[in-house]
């Protein structure tokens, strides 16, 4: 069983569209949408939710107004500016749950035990069936943190399913950037595929994303989407990748069919038999080859 994670550095380069096509092309696989703070894969794969569970990213502090003696120690100790005074009439503080990082310092410094500290529910994760196979996905609550922990749950569940059902591939849709959720998505994976575009921004972000993968010693390949938008930069990116020992698994041409497929809620390779689908199929074949 092999786990492939699709990331991009820069957002909007076509990760999810590519993963949806891989879902249609790969046999014996489980899909995992690890872009938990802006999950989109479900819009194409139309999952039927079979199991759901609450996600708690940690605890949150809450001030018990009746017990508070207005000493101000909690506000002084909080490093996240999460304690404020909503009422100008008195000094009873309140916790801003968006800024609260659940460190518990306020709970411990409160001399009268006036702060409760319970697991906060800040998301949900699902095991679903799709006509492409099983899928694990999640929803992070509005303005919530700790996406890395939720990503790890999604990946672990996908792995359990792959092991139980003896599947060949875990295909992971990652998030943009190089921070917490991306690190949680790629750590320990068999292969990272970085999807980029032939723009200076795409090039810049690809380099940082591939440095991140190298930092965690994960084999990395790249693919240039919409390569014909700027063939010169596409060539430059490929040359740079080669210099860094990163294999290139192919180019995908610019085609409005990619947007149209999304609107029809289907994968590109199912939507059109055109040249762009051939490009994607080639990318998938090369990706499997790169997995060894």
């Amino acid at each position, binding site marked *: 069983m092999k786990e492939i994670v699709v990331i991009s550095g820069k957002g909007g380069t076509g990760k999810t569209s590519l993963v949806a096509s891989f879902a249609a092309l790969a046999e014996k696989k489980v899909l995992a949408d690890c872009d938990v703070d802006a999950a989109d894969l479900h819009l194409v794969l139309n999952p039927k939710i079979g199991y759901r569970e609450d996600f708690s990213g940690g605890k949150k502090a809450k001030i018990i107004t009746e017990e508070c003696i207005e000493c101000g120690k909690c506000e002084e100790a909080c490093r996240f500016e999460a304690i404020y005074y909503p009422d100008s009439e008195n000094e009873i503080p309140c916790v801003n749950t968006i800024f609260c*990082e659940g460190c518990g310092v306020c709970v411990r410094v409160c001399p009268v035990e006036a702060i409760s500290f319970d697991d906060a529910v800040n998301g949900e994760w699902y095991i679903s069936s799709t006509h492409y196979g099983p899928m694990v996905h999640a929803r992070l609550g509005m303005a919530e*943190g700790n996406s890395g922990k939720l990503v790890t749950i999604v990946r672990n569940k996908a792995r359990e399913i792959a092991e139980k059902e003896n599947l060949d591939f875990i295909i992971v849709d990652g998030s943009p*950037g*190089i921070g917490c959720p991306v690190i949680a998505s790629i750590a320990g994976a068999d292969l990272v595929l970085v999807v980029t575009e032939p723009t200076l921004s795409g090039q810049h972000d690809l380099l940082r994303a591939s440095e991140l993968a190298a930092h965690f010693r994960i084999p990395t390949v790249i693919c240039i989407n919409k390569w014909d938008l700027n063939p010169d930069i596409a060539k430059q990116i490929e040359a740079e990748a080669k210099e860094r020992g990163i294999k290139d698994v192919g180019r995908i041409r610019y085609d409005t069919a990619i*947007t149209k497929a999304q609107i029809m809620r289907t994968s590109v390779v199912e939507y059109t038999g055109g040249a762009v689908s051939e490009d994607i199929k080639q990318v998938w074949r090369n990706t499997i080859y790169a997995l060894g």
Partner: protein
Amino acid sequence: MKLAIASGKGGTGKTTIATNLTATLADMGKTVQLLDCDVEEPNCHIFLKPRLESSTIITTPLPEVDEEKCTGCGICAEVCEYGAIAVVKGKVLIFPELCHGCGACEMFCPEDAITEIGREVGIVEEGRADGFRFIHGLLKIGELMSPAVIHAVKVAGGESEIVIIDSPPGTSCPVIEAVKGTDFVVLVTEPTPFGLNDLQLAVGMGRVLGIPFAVAINRSDVGNNDVKEYCQREKIDVILEIPDDRKIAEAYSRGEMIISAVPNYRELLETCWERIIDIHQNWES
């Protein structure tokens, strides 16, 4: 006026709007600064080509144990909610990547054996672009704590008549850090199912934070009408529509400003700014 340019979905055109709007405002004679808070993948410098004048290392607090004072009592591990400290056979082990720098271990160590040292998580660079101050942050590769670097960029920014913030994509902690404390948020999207879904998440975030916001639709003629219908239903103003244009895409790919490649965009952005001011003034929470 502190204005954040954000989006749920990545690659919708935040950086394009942030850089071109800032340059347009500077040309109008306004005192403006641009803060690139997408510290994981900052791109504004590619378009603005600023002269960078200074660079500051950003650190977060990390505990360090004085082994002579430490008795191995384990209280530091007990009070750490992030699992960043373990005490094994009387010896304290620290996992720096998991530390949030809350200070609990230092505060509650009964032997006073913990001090905090600075751990490098990124850098902030400051300089000048054509007619305005420019600041951006770069998260160190392999680090998790982008909010710390974003916070540092915003602190470096200080006060100015207008501050434009280019936010990272998404709706979780890094975005909250970039957007909090701003007066207005422009949510950039695309008229596609992904664009709509992620816009809905971003609108939810705007509402939770209680910050006035409006929507900009990029590549406005490529998909379907669902984004506009959604905005109408929710009574959200659409303040800017940029049609799909190969000239824009190509200029973008070369790192060129849209207002230079397609000059009539200047006027569009001026109108967009007027609308932001207007909506902000009349906003009822």
